[in-house]
């Protein structure tokens, strides 16, 4: 059974923000009134900037500031689809014939991004490429769905990333209890002795990049492999698939797999970049009641949206809708030093102290308590019995320190 359902209905309008990565905004390559095709590059800029492509064929109706799921309003290209679904010609390549620089160039031109970081900037020479097959947070299942639906594409994508970094080995970290995904990936990688799956016990934060790589490396060292942290490149399942699409299909990144929860039919869908959250939610049967909160990406670190007209962008992997009963705001109580936050902190910090210092404006003390090591995973605020918004206070202090 397919895990991912593509959204085929053409939306009434598509909003493509010119900024879908960390850094400067793209400049539009089209103007109002132009007709664009699917896959056409519509925004680009100086080096280090990641191009964006149209996910629809139709007419550009406006170029204006629009809501963005992660930032404030961002200059966006608004396209009214004409329903023709006209594609530009995709130029497929055989990656085994390509040089390292050529692959990096193709990945850059395809606009592949991962948590805001353009992937081509991550492809420095490494010995090992590690793919993160664990889903980072509760309700998020897009990585698993991708592995079950596109195992051979992901293995090819991994090989492309290995070639682009010069790595000789590839690992895919998968939740140890998910034998279905492990078997599927093992079967797909059966011919390739350099690619292995690594079963890992999933804990929420282990899915985060920093900790994930350490966990894989630790396990491999324990099994006698010689591997060091410095020579690894960590990437995601989604990136591997995007790399496959870019090189083997010639297709830029114009679609993303989104786990949709809290709707009538919770599922994984493949949505075109620029589709509004409302369109995606309607595809999944619509809201279950009166929505109270709409969160993009996981419940632990995701951003709450103020409107469902926000477009899906490249880095959207999840949508979570909460209703009155889940979105209640508890009253904040004084900290009782219970140290539950200390026990869960993956960065070995004292979150309650950081929050207290931040609350009093003592940013010098925040620094002394290593605030910069915080990865903002949200576990401290999740367990806090006093319901103190620890992460919010820490983020605030980090902004001040900058």
């Amino acid at each position: 059974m397919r895990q991912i359902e593509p959204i085929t209905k053409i939306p009434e309008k598509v909003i493509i923000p010119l900024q879908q990565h960390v850094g400067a905004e793209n400049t539009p390559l089209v103007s109002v009134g132009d007709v664009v095709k699917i896959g056409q590059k519509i925004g680009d800029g100086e080096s280090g900037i990641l191009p964006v492509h149209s996910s629809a064929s139709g007419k550009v109706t406006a170029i204006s500031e629009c809501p963005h799921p992660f930032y404030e309003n961002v200059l966006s290209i608004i396209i009214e689809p004409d329903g023709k679904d006209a594609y530009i010609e995709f130029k497929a390549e055989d990656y085994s014939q390509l040089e390292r620089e050529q692959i990096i160039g193709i990945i850059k031109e395809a606009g592949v991004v991962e948590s805001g970081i353009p992937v081509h900037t991550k492809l420095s020479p490494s010995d090992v490429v590690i793919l993160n097959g664990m889903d980072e947070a509760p309700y998020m299942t897009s990585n698993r769905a991708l592995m079950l639906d596109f195992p051979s594409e992901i293995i090819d994508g991994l090989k492309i990333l290995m070639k682009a970094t010069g790595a000789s080995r590839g690992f895919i970290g998968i939740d140890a209890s998910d034998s279905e995904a492990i078997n599927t990936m093992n079967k797909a990688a059966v011919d390739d002795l350099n690619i292995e799956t690594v079963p890992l016990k999933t804990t929420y934060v282990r899915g985060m990049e920093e900790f994930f790589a350490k966990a894989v490396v630790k396990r491999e060292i324990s099994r006698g492999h010689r591997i060091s942290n410095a020579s690894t490149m960590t990437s995601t399942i989604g990136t591997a698939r995007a790399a496959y699409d870019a090189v083997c299909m010639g297709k830029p990144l114009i679609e993303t797999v989104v786990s949709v929860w809290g709707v009538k039919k919770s599922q994984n869908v493949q949505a075109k970049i620029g589709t509004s959250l409302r369109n995606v939610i309607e595809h999944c049967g619509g809201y279950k009641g009166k929505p109270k909160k709409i969160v993009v990406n996981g419940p632990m670190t995701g951003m709450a949206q103020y409107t469902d007209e926000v477009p899906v962008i490249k880095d959207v992997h999840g949508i979570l809708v909460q209703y009155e009963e889940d979105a209640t705001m508890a009253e904040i109580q004084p900290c009782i030093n219970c140290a539950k936050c200390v026990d869960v902190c993956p960065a070995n910090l004292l979150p309650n102290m950081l929050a207290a210092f931040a609350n009093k404006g003592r940013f010098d003390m925040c620094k002394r308590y290593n605030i910069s090591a915080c990865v903002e995973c949200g576990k401290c605020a999740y367990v806090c019995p006093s319901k103190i918004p620890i992460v919010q206070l820490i983020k605030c202090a980090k902004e001040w320190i900058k």
Partner: protein
Amino acid sequence: MSIIVSAPPHIKKDTCTKKMVCGVIIALLPALAVSLYLFGLPAMAIILTSVLAAVCAEGAIQKFILKKAIPTDGSAIVTGLLLALLLHVNVPLWIPLIGAVVAIAIGKQAFGGYGSNIFNPALVGWAVLTMAWPSHMASAGVARLVDIPPFVLLVGAAFLLYMGYIKWQIPASYLIGVVFLSALLTRDGSYIFIGAFILGVFFMATDPITTPLTKKGRFIFGIGCGILTVIYGYYGDYAEGVCYSILLMNSVTPLIDRFMKAKPFVEG
């Protein structure tokens, strides 16, 4: 459409401070019941006076002096109960009354209230009473309310540990400290396991507010309590040793935390 925005995380664990305080009260219930059974009405009067005085003192200070809402966290009840359990059965009722008011007013509110106190409030009340009225507080041969079979207290302690309401490192290292040191000093360690000791180890040394945050610090705190308890108990009264050792270790808690910070995990 009216939707709200807020900072992540968007899900929260179903615990709250009130639940934790209720947990401690529930954990004390078996001990209170046995104490009432063994010592009867005088025990009942002491417990009620102590709890009522603590609750009223807390409410009055919050409402009339600080002009804040009357607290509903229930922590004053715990203070009252712990203080009552440390008293002798034959004390006049003004002893728990003064003790509880001192515990709340000086032990807690003077430091900034719930969450800000340095010393365990019940122990502050107890210490003041012990200094001021030694004749009432050290009646030889008269039982304390907490002088009940220790296993009754252990039932409550097991509940607290199971629910994760207390930092387990503290009782563990406290027990280890006491057992090792008393094995070195004396041949017979059976006198250790009295009610006051179990109450101290599991209910007073584990008060979250006054004990270290850091993981290593919790072990140091526990071992420190253990050593001080045995030394004091060796030369003086063992039950008093439990109380003073916890108070002393409370005073160095911020210091322990300052020096026992773990090395942060940084990528690379």
